[in-house]
């Protein structure tokens, strides 16, 4: 069982061969976007952070930018800075460069403003794209796959069809020795005891409990009880009776295997098996967190239709809702049909998703990639903007 991927100097395997133009701070976004638009083969990573934040958040932003830069789908990185931001650009450059890939920097203040920055940045990127275009895909076994999962714009079909199917694909990848990453800590509420039971060690069990409590306390500080109002009136109308049932319908997308570890947001997952990344459910922050974890592809299960992808990680959009498959066909890569009599649709769909992951890993494009949907991402932070 193998796929065709791009070898990286640090032993990782990419499924894409992009040069990323990464803003180190919100103030550099306009230049970053222009360079990426100018150079074929380049992608932009934009976000709202990097300055006027508390040290905890600045560290989180730095770590996330470093690990985004290390994502195996990137063959090289250009960091675009304004020049006076709080995050340390040279530190970010060094830490990404430790992976062996080329990393360049460009400061808008130093070079004399936007126009020379766009010109010089485009020149640097052009050279990098040509240089890495000679890297060829090679055969790697499936244990080199590292895949994320997400659900969004969910409906009744999510918990019944597409999430269990995604989970079945995760179980297959786990059995092939690969790495599976899920998160969305908010969705663990009411089912955290079930995840804790699946923890590989007592430390992992404790950590799962801790991230749920921490997230809940954060909401409490804002005066919000996240547990009391669940499931919502709309959920009950749709057939969900208890918070356990609602949360199980979400966490089922992570499969059924033992959980080897819990990572903080922005951390890189470095081992094989099934892992949790503590993360919020909102797409721009979640997708960034899981890209920083190092995933090559994200399975995204949707009910009524979430269109977004991510700049350099292909997002495989699946749905079990036949209406969404029809009306939002521009955004749905794979329809998981409702079962017919005598079929074990979930196991079969899991196998189909697994094969689709391998096709995408070997070069097949997703709809969000082709449309360029998912340009605007963000990094999760906890403190105030100062």
């Amino acid at each position: 069982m193998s796929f065709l991927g791009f070898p990286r100097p640090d032993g990782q395997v990419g499924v894409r061969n992009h040069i990323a133009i990464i803003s180190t701070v919100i103030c550099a976004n306009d230049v970053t976007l222009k360079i990426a638009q100018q150079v074929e083969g380049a992608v932009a990573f934009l976000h709202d952070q990097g300055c006027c934040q508390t040290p905890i958040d600045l560290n989180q932003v730095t770590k996330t930018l470093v690990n985004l830069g290390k994502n195996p789908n990137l063959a090289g990185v250009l960091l675009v800075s304004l020049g006076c931001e709080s995050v340390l650009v040279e530190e970010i450059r060094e830490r990404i460069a430790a992976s062996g890939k080329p990393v360049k920097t460009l400061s808008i203040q130093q070079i004399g403003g936007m126009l020379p920055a766009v010109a010089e940045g485009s020149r640097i990127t052009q050279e990098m794209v040509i240089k890495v275009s000679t890297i060829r895909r090679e055969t790697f076994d499936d244990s080199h796959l590292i895949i994320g999962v997400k659900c969004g714009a969910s409906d009744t079909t999510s918990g019944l069809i597409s999430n269990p199917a995604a989970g079945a694909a995760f179980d297959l990848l786990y059995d092939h020795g690969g790495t599976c990453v899920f998160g969305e800590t908010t969705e663990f509420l009411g089912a955290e005891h079930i995840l804790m039971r699946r923890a590989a060690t007592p430390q992992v069990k404790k950590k799962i409990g801790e991230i749920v409590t921490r997230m809940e306390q954060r909401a409490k500080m804002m005066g919000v009880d996240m547990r009391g109002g669940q499931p919502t009136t709309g959920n009950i109308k749709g057939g969900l009776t208890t918070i356990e049932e609602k949360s199980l319908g979400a966490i089922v997308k992570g499969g059924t295997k033992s959980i080897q570890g819990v990572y903080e947001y922005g951390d890189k997952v470095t081992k094989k098996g099934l892992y949790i990344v503590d993360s919020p459910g909102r797409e721009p922050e979640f997708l960034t967190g899981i890209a920083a974890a190092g995933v090559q592809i994200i399975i995204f299960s949707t009910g009524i239709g979430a269109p977004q992808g991510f700049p350099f990680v292909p997002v495989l959009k699946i749905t079990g809702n036949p209406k969404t498959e029809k009306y939002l066909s521009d955004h749905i890569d794979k329809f998981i049909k409702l079962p017919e009599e005598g079929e074990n649709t979930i196991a079969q769909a899991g196998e189909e998703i697994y094969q689709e992951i391998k096709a995408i890993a070997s070069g097949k494009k997703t709809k969000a990639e082709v449309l360029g949907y998912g340009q605007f991402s963000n990094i999760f932070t906890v403190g105030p903007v100062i």
Partner: protein
Amino acid sequence: MIKKRAIVINSKDNVATALDDLKADQVIQEEVDSLKKNIKLNQGIPFGHKFSLKEIPSGSPVIKYGEVIGTASELIKVGDYVHVHNLKSNRGRGDIK
């Protein structure tokens, strides 16, 4: 092929979820403990809602996804509609201090 009318997500489950709006007295065939059984619905079950595959005594766990989703607050008979009127959450209130 005949469209499946309900889905049992895990073989340990004691409830099934309707994949269509089902009517009272309708007979649904499902596998229960590896045996094919005909289940006559005692009430109408809307799409996405649950009915019981087994008799669940009051105070016993209701199982979906192979896990406990709550406790039966009254006797649930085979083919009964299972929702907020006869299934209560075990979590969600007071378990996190």
